[in-house]
């Protein structure tokens, strides 16, 4: 089903999308918020600029964006995937607890803030370009991979501040990046590089690119220093 979103408000648009399972193509999208929020079983392709909170609480649907997306993509998403063939705004994957976000270009500030995981529910976010400051802030779980392709800087200031779970992979040797004392990094080992390689293959599958060339570089794995790096900081635990 093709939806011409010109002059259609976000409520109306989401009511159409909520009606049933199926494939939707949204044309002339311009700022409508919450697209596909909470849905499962749908395939939504968007031409234009979707508004904030694209795919919030997403529960299994697939969303493809032809260009850029705004702030809070995949806020608290539980399952499904969001593929953005451009850049995304701030706070992407906020409190994400499952599913996947793939971004061809850059992410804004606070990508992956407070991502979490539980048993088999491990969210994944792959960013092809660079990110703003506070990447993986308060990260509690999940996997963030940043490739830094065509970006002057792979991450901004204060990456992984407050991180206490999960892992961040960065395509860099890490020597110019200042991390907080509660996290540490090492050059990614064989098993980690294999995991990165599988994600890079999928990235190139969505957006093109040479897997070998991308993998021909140092990667680092950033993790919290211990299972409880903030022990006794707030409560005696």
């Amino acid at each position, binding site marked *: 089903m093709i939806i011409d979103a010109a002059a259609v408000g976000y409520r109306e648009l989401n009511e159409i999308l909520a009606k049933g399972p199926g494939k939707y193509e949204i044309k002339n999208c311009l*700022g409508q918020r919450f697209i596909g929020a909470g849905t499962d079983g749908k395939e939504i392709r968007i031409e234009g*600029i979707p*508004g904030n909170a694209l795919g919030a609480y997403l529960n299994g649907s697939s969303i493809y964006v032809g260009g850029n997306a*705004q*702030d809070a993509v995949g806020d608290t998403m539980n399952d499904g995937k969001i593929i953005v063939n451009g850049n995304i*705004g701030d706070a992407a994957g906020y409190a994400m607890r499952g599913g996947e976000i793939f971004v061809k270009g850059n992410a*804004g500030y606070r990508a992956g803030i407070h991502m979490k995981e539980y048993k088999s529910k491990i969210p994944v976010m792959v960013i092809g370009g660079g990110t*703003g*400051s506070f990447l993986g802030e308060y990260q509690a779980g999940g996997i963030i991979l940043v490739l830094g392709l065509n970006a002057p800087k792979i991450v901004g200031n204060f990456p992984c501040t407050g991180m206490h779970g999960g892992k961040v992979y960065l395509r860099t040797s890490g020597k110019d990046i200042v991390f907080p004392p509660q996290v540490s990094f090492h050059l990614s080992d064989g098993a980690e590089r294999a995991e990165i390689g599988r994600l890079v293959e999928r990235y190139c599958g969505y957006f093109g690119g040479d897997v070998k060339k991308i993998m021909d570089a140092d990667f680092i794995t950033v993790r919290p220093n211990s299972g409880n790096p903030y022990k006794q900081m707030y409560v005696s635990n």
Partner: protein
Amino acid sequence: MKKEGQIRIPSGCAVSAVISREGKRMTGEKIIQSMVPMHDRSNGLGGGFAVYGIYPEYKEFYALHLFFDDNRAKSECETILKEGFEIVKSELIPTRKIPAITDEPLIWRYFVAPLKSVLASLQLDDKEYVARVVMRINSEVRGAYVFSSGKNMGAFKAVGYPEDVGEFYRLEEYEGYCWTAHGRYPTNTPGWWGGAHPFALLDYSVVHNGEISSYDANRRFIEMFGYKCTLQTDTEVITYIMDYLLRKQKLTLKESASVIAAPFWSTIARKPEEERKKLTFLRAVYSGLLITGPFSVILGFEGGLMALNDRLKLRSMVVGEKDDKVYIASEEAAIRTMEPNVENVYAPSGGEPVIVRVKEGAL
């Protein structure tokens, strides 16, 4: 209605701007349209626009835009104006009656020039005199409020959604080389006409999305220098801070950005020596003017604009360009409303000022 101090409203906002680097003048239609996709960022309690280059026939005169509650306030205010100014023209600002905008005050504009004899006897330059008269009217004349006081520019604001405010003020009939716009979602103060954005003093205008947590520290500092914050609104204090840093302290725009959105000490420590010294100096001397809490602001001034996010970047802001024009907005959708084929879209970092000037000689 309850005014500032009598009520606190707990709770976003929308900002948008366009400037022609060639100084080409544009009507208000596109900037009004840009606020439509961001409608839900406002709640109908305030909208407004600032525009530069709109009064070329009166460009030598200060254009004072005023709200009056009643004719008493108007005549009291005019008495003050006649003491110090030559008034070359006074008129009602043309508006259009629309259902969405109600309870309007009396809205007047005056084109004025300070009397040379008055400036000589007070030993003040004309800008300082105008600023003082604005402070005096806004703090002393009950029911009168100067909401715009620059040359060849004007602020237009009201209670309502920005799209409606633009229609109310007939902004499609004005042409300027730079426009800024704001949709308000008031957080701490009730929405009334004076409290809508932009806030303006002389040729500086500020639209702001955010809620600064340093308001009172900033207010106490700035009030030492003759500014009077009458509205308890954080944007008012930002406007006065910019006037103080730029006009009185003669800082550059970049320096003023390093004052209000100063980098963290840990970030300063990693800078090259020269820059480190300068940033340390600015943070130390103007510590009372560090603005903390979320903000994205667009400062308009004669011949240009500056957009700035707080250092933590707790609010969104996107910049793009096409031909001679630069676009800035809270959301990319707003920019694409103005220019569907916008290029080089990016989000500036927190504390990184985006400064755009009309090229020399174009105005």
